């Protein structure tokens, strides 16, 4: 449950997103430092405690209030269906979620494979499709090349996997990027720490965007 301390607890996904996130948080005035021990799962610094998690666990930690805030992709956030605040679009880790199938395949879509079963089911329902969804853990594209499924719902970053495997995107479900997510109770009780963090992050993101567009 929520700690009485006013120190913030931040959940970040392992890997590239962690490093970009730390840099952004730093810019927003939150000093996070990595523990010297490379196996550490929890990093303590003066301003905050940072947890390093698998990205799909970030919404769970934040929704249950173990972490006050976290950074996670919109794709993972939508799949988790968690009830949190998402006050800042951080603009990095951009990708999009698409319905994908083998190029030239014209048959009916009766079965869809995805690492994002909730996202896929919601989309299919909205489109009036009765296709069933199979949850897979990785290399989802293989499903529609082998006949396991007629199509897949997956994220596309550069599109190189699609080209290499002769796949095509039929429809883009949504565009995704990293979001700052905040526990609902934490925002109320740690307002003094979280409100400036949110404002500074928005400012940092805006500054970055204007550099990009005016370049």
């Amino acid at each position, binding site marked *: *449950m*929520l700690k*009485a301390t006013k120190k913030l607890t931040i959940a970040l996904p392992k890997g590239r997103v962690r490093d970009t996130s730390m840099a952004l948080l730093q810019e927003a005035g939150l000093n996070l430092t990595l523990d010297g021990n490379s196996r550490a799962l929890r990093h303590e610094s003066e301003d905050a405690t940072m947890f390093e998690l698998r990205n799909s666990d970030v919404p769970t930690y934040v*929704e*249950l*209030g*173990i972490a006050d805030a976290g950074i996670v992709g919109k794709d993972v956030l939508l799949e988790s269906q968690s*009830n*949190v*605040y*998402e*006050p*800042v*679009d951080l603009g990095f880790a951009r990708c999009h979620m698409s319905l994908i199938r083998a190029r030239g395949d014209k048959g009916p879509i009766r079965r869809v494979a995805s690492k994002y079963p909730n996202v896929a089911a919601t989309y299919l329902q909205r489109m009036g499709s009765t296709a069933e969804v199979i949850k897979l853990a990785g290399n989802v594209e293989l499903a529609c090349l082998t006949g396991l499924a007629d199509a897949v719902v997956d994220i596309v970053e550069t599109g190189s996997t699609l080209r290499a495997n002769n796949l095509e995107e039929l429809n883009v479900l949504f565009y995704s990027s990293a*979001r700052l997510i*905040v*526990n*609902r*109770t*934490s*925002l*109320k*009780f740690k*307002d003094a720490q979280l409100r400036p963090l949110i404002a500074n992050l*928005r400012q940092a993101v805006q500054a970055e965007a204007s550099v990009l567009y005016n370049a």
Partner: protein
Amino acid sequence: MDSTAPPTAPRLAPLTGTKDSLPALSATRWQVMSTLRALYSSWGYAPVEVPAIEPYDPTHPAAARAFKLVDGSDVLMLRADFTPSISRLIQAQEAGLRPTAAIKAGSPQLISPEVASSIDKPPNEGNAFVDDLQSTGVYRYQYSGALWQAHTPTIINPREFTQIGLELIGSASTRADVELIHLARESVRAVGLVPRVDLGNPGLIRKLLDLAGIPKADQERVATTIDRKDVAGLSSLLEPYTLAPDLRNALLATPDLYGGVDVLDRAHKLMPWPDVADDVRHFEAVIAEFEDVSELHIDLAMARRLDYYTGITFRAYTTESAQPLLGGGRYDGALLPHAAGFALGLERVVTVLPHVYAEAPLVVSNDDVAARRLRAAGYSVSRALATSPTSLRAEAVVMDVPFVLMNGQLEAVKELTPELENLQHALQVSLNADTPDENTTASI
């Protein structure tokens, strides 16, 4: 499958999303229930009960989430929300008792003669209460019980849960809103936690969305981004609409309109449109009724169930819990003309409370007459299963009970601490006390 488990091992755990309560948990639940029931009674809320099974109704607000049952040719559902049932109960009660007729007849139990005589006069500002009464009576009801919802169960949303709540029906006045907010705050205090009550108004958000010309079908989606404080998502949903700049600004500002009462000043500046400004003023009137606003906060981005809530809504939080403990608000016209209420999640409260000890018996007794005296004095006395003195003492030891009562004699089976010694003395006093004739007591 665990291959080491015997193939016939019975399933002992209850269904996922449901829970057993052992004595320590159960005692805590009962204590919280009785504290809150007493609180609501002390504010004049009478208890009502409604059935746990009801006819399936596709227009019921929780119809999609309700467990359905089939009984012959009837489709039934398990109670998934209290408010519609309480509304039905009130409508049924109203059908048998027309308050308008009763007021006109000067019925003493509903209204004083002075008020009754004033109702034929043309309405004026002072008559709002009577105007309310003409459409329906005023009811203050409390309820408690289990609810069931069919969904993938999570820690936060189980299949079976318990709510304690109340409804204040028949008035849409500021005083009615204030009363409910008072009670929401008192509920959290009563169970020993420090409250923080967040106030919002989905009705105000709906008015903004109407002004912006956002079709009803899309309003809930837009409102969800506001509720999640998702400014980026909100901004992209608003993009296709041609909006006056001040209206777009006002909408984009709503996710951040949370904090102390100064939020209302900001809202006033951002939202000059008469209908919306009325809602902000009502908010101010509600806040003005509180001497101490330190535990009250405003979050104008609270924007769930736009088609249901019409006025002020609120949620109560406490630092120990990541989830709100209670929630509710005004839903005029959704089920009844003027209605507001809230419900508290018993499991959410109990999770953050230390468990109380279940009341263990203090005495094991083979003497029914003496035992009756102790029970009448408020002590818990278990009736012995053993027949001989030796096995009776053994029974007490096994049950971890400090005293035995055999043929009128009280005896300690545990080493006497000063505390137990006091207790023994108190028990002895109750045993020796002159009690009314046993037969008289029994006949009462």
